[in-house]
């Protein structure tokens, strides 16, 4: 982006560097705010339908366009032409603001996402905090929608949203602290630069905690109690129709992509890969491709989980967050912090081995703890899962 700004000053005579930066930023904002939602929503809704259809031994969309690739556009036209129904008893202001906030919050997360070498909206010094803060705005939108509808199903969905958000925010932030600890920075650009070995390899516990917590925060199955259709109709967006429903939908898929993009950035090395080191145009294209592939792989894992895992019950969901993920996260954080301060860890290789050993120890201890809890509990199925006999 800096290179494009510098190039603009040479092409347009009399253009100052600050103004050139501003032009680049405005163009990139417009691309993020209009191009990215359309591209991401159309591409990933199609992918989701095809993947889930495949898992369930169906064909999936195959009518609109070749192999159904135009299905997303067909849906968009349908949404636009549907009547917009506002319940007479709804709180109109909050009711109308909620879908807009859902999509705005999801787009804002992209501001700090490094999608290729040098291509990042703004590399904030507090990038990680920005991501966590803006990411949870989406949940606020669901709360607003559920409360303002004056519908009992929607209200239960909104309550569940809040409970889920506060439960999974904690392990998510703990996993992020581990990454910051290893990278020594909260800037996403620096975190990518610090991953000579992806943190997936050196911090596997943090990766799994962050993956599960982001699935919960995005509200994806098996954590989709917010909109569990077998219990509470459609949850917080029960009353929404037409374009307002579509905005929630856009928000969900943008959030999905942003969440997967952050997992790729924090744990899989972001845009890094062979040939994506320097600032040449080829490196930018390659880096972008690596980023897209890594993000799509994470999204595929999330779709796979949605297609194969049953939905959790609300008390199980909260127990899993508070009584398993949070203690394991705290233990892993302490273990990594202690391991990195062992005297004589000069070389990077030794640091990686120390982090991996600390994570391995935490995994071993938590497996023992699960087996112990299973032995103590009366549940036969839990004993079976933990491999405890008798």
């Amino acid at each position, binding site marked *: 982006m800096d290179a494009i700004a510098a190039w603009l000053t040479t092409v347009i005579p009399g253009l100052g560097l600050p103004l050139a930066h501003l032009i680049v930023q405005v163009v990139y*904002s417009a691309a*993020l705010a209009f191009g990215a939602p359309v591209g991401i929503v159309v591409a990933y809704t199609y992918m989701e339908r095809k993947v889930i259809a495949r898992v369930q031994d169906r064909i999936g969309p195959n009518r609109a366009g070749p192999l159904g690739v135009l299905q997303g556009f067909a849906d968009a036209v349908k949404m636009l032409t549907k009547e917009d129904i506002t319940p007479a008893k709804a709180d109109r202001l909050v009711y109308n603001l909620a879908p807009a906030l859902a*999509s*705005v919050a999801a787009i*804002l997360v992209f501001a700090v996402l490094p999608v290729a070498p040098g291509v990042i909206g*703004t590399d904030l010094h507090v990038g990680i905090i920005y991501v966590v803060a803006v990411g949870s705005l989406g949940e606020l939108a669901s709360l607003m929608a559920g409360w303002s509808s004056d519908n009992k199903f929607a*209200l239960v969905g909104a309550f569940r949203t809040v409970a889920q958000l506060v439960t999974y925010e904690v392990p998510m932030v703990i996993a992020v602290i581990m990454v910051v600890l290893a990278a020594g920075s909260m800037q996403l650009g620096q975190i990518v630069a610090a991953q000579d070995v992806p943190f997936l390899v050196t911090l596997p516990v943090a990766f799994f905690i962050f993956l599960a917590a982001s699935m919960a925060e995005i509200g994806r199955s098996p954590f989709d109690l917010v909109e569990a259709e077998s219990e509470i109709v459609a949850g917080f967006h029960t*009353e929404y129709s*037409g374009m307002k429903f579509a905005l929630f939908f856009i928000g969900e898929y943008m959030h999905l992509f942003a969440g997967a993009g952050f997992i790729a950035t924090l744990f899989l090395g972001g845009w890094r890969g062979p040939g994506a080191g320097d600032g040449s145009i080829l490196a930018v294209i390659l880096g972008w491709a690596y980023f897209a592939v890594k993000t799509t792989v994470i999204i595929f894992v999330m779709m796979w989980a949605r297609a194969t895992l049953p939905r959790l019950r609300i008390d199980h969901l909260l127990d899993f967050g508070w009584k398993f993920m949070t203690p394991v996260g705290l233990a892993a954080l302490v273990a990594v912090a202690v391991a990195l301060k062992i005297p004589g860890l000069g070389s990077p290789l030794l640091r990686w081995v120390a982090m991996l050993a600390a994570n391995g120890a935490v995994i071993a201890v938590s497996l023992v703890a699960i087996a112990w809890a299973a032995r103590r509990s009366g549940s036969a199925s839990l004993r079976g899962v933990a491999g405890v006999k008798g």
Partner: protein
Amino acid sequence: MRSEFVFVGILVVFSMLLPAAGLGFAWLIRPKKPNPIKKSTYECGIATSSDAWVQFRAQYYIYALVFVVFDVEAVFLLPWAVAYNQLTAYAMLESVVFVAILAVALIYAWRKGALRWS
């Protein structure tokens, strides 16, 4: 430092244009035929009874209180994690003690039944 946030400001403006454009366009082309039945609150197909704005369960507040403890903890630990490579082993021990105190708080809430969904 402040100039970093200029982009966020620009993006806020642009991201608001997407819902505005979508809703505006839909407003132009969608049908508008409201009637009282359509505008009533959905409730499994029969006539709606009573309001949904009732008292919340107290359980949600207890989870929120435990959450506040851990969120403040994160605010303290993030700067520590950034500065970690410049810190001595003593600073590391201090934060281990800090996390241990939090773990005790979690165990206390657990034993007291604050984390039980009844």
